[in-house]
């Protein structure tokens, strides 16, 4: 056993997670190395020396005297403690360590949020902008820079942004296929690395988009959707240039309520009333971050009524196929639906 292993075992012993076999190994190591035994004894004793936690009675009485009083002249942030703790906990999380490492390891400043195949994540950025991160997506930002007013994030995958209005500090989103500049708006992004097509839909406000390797900047107004298709043309320098098209966002009527198809993935609960499966596909693709291919028209015409809650994709497919039978399989990241 080397010293590294010995220390690792000692750490386990101190935090109480040591197994019997490991304990025996630790004993044996200490018997063979008297110096280790000495160190283990001192460190164990040190570990067991607690810091004082006893609060003087006077401090408690002073505190208790203030209980039940409405705080006077307390800044708003103090009155919203529970909300702050709940919302910001995860998000400001990195800041502390990030600040520490700023001087030595700039690479560690970035906060990274990632979602798995069936997860969505609600993220409040330090400037109180909201991001709903879709499945299979990654969001990166520098918490410290945010606090200082440099609002810039990188995203790969899908996300809905509701950006806090702050004209003095532009909000910049870096995508695999370009860069978005905003002031205060709400918009939706679909830009997965594995997909050749990306799109951005604007719900309100105004944003500009500059595609990668392009000098032209596109301005989007509410209801606009920009679609970027990679590698459609060859430029002079032989680098693939994206084909850009500006369209209108699609709305789907689900149970008589209009939803913007591009953002319906965010709804926790969708009520279906005689909706055909093929009409639901774009929403489901967004919601679960997959591509869905319906091979038989008949399957696409199946109509459903009911509720889609927070189900995983396999749960949902199982439920849908038990109402109207169809088979489904995954092939290269695509879900293929076939007639039975």
């Amino acid at each position, binding site marked *: 056993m080397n*010293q*590294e292993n010995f*220390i*690792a075992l*000692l*750490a386990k012993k*101190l*935090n109480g997670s040591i197994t019997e076999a490991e304990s025996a190994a630790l004993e044996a190591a200490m018997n063979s190395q008297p*110096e280790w035994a*000495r*160190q283990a004894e*001192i*460190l164990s*004793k*040190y*570990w*067991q*020396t*607690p*810091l*004082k*936690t*006893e*609060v003087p009675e006077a*401090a*408690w009485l002073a*505190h*208790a005297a*203030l*209980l*039940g009083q409405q705080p006077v002249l307390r800044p708003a*942030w*103090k009155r919203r*403690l*529970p909300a*702050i*703790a709940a919302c*910001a*906990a*995860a998000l*400001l*999380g*990195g*800041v*502390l*360590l990030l*600040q*520490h*490492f*700023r*001087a*030595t390891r700039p690479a560690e400043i970035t906060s990274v949020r990632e979602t798995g195949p069936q997860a969505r994540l609600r993220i409040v950025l330090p400037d109180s902008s909201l991001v709903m991160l879709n499945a299979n997506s990654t969001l990166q930002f520098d918490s*410290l820079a945010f*606090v200082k007013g440099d609002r810039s994030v990188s995203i790969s995958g899908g996300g809905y942004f509701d950006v806090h209005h702050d004209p003095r500090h532009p909000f910049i989103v870096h995508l695999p296929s370009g860069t978005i500049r905003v002031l205060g708006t709400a918009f939706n992004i679909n830009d997965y690395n594995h997909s050749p097509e990306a799109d951005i839909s604007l719900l309100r406000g105004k944003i500009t988009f500059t595609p990668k390797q392009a000098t032209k900047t596109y301005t989007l107004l509410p209801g606009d959707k920009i679609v970027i298709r990679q590698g459609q043309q060859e430029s002079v320098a032989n680098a693939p240039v994206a084909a850009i098209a500006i369209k209108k966002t699609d709305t789907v009527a689900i149970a008589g309520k209009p939803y913007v198809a591009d953002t319906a993935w965010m709804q926790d609960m969708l009520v279906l009333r005689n909706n055909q499966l093929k009409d639901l596909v774009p929403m489901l693709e967004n919601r679960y971050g997959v591509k869905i291919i319906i091979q038989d028209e008949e399957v696409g015409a199946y109509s459903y009524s009911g509720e889609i809650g927070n189900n995983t994709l396999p749960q949902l497919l199982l439920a849908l196929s038990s109402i109207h039978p169809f088979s489904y399989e995954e092939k290269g990241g695509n879900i293929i639906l076939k007639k039975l």
Partner: protein
Amino acid sequence: MLTDLEIIKEQIGDGDLKAYEILFKQLYLPLVRFSQSLVHEKIIAEEIAADVLMSVWTNRQRISAVENLRTYLFIAVKNNSLKHLARTRRFVSLEDCNPVAQFQNPEGQLLSGELYRQIQDAIQQLPPRCKMCFQLVKEEGLSYKEAAAVLDISVKTVDAQIVIALKKLAERLDSLRR
């Protein structure tokens, strides 16, 4: 040792002031210490810790929604300490960061004064993240999982940092012997 915070949480939810007193007496100083290692001002740290604890009492009807009360309090103290720093534009720098050692008030001595001082000094030399993990786990008795949640890092990282800390301490003990 902490008595069962789960029970205390339920009792506070029922409006039991005695339970809140136990919570306050157990966690006030650890929270002050934690805040102080970030804001470096005892008075501010005391205010932040007291405010966070008081919010537990003020919002006791909703306290049952909190999963781990201790982690919740440490995270709230961290966030408010960082907010304070952001407002005063005083950021934690490597030189400033001084967790653990300004609190040399152990309860009862198992080690000789000199040995204890040497270990404290070695802790001072630890990198900040390592020191912060050590403070939460050893000094304030948080589990690895709780410390990981408070610092927003993985349990694995906490584990690794504690091992690094112990290694540095063992090295110090080694050098003392020579």
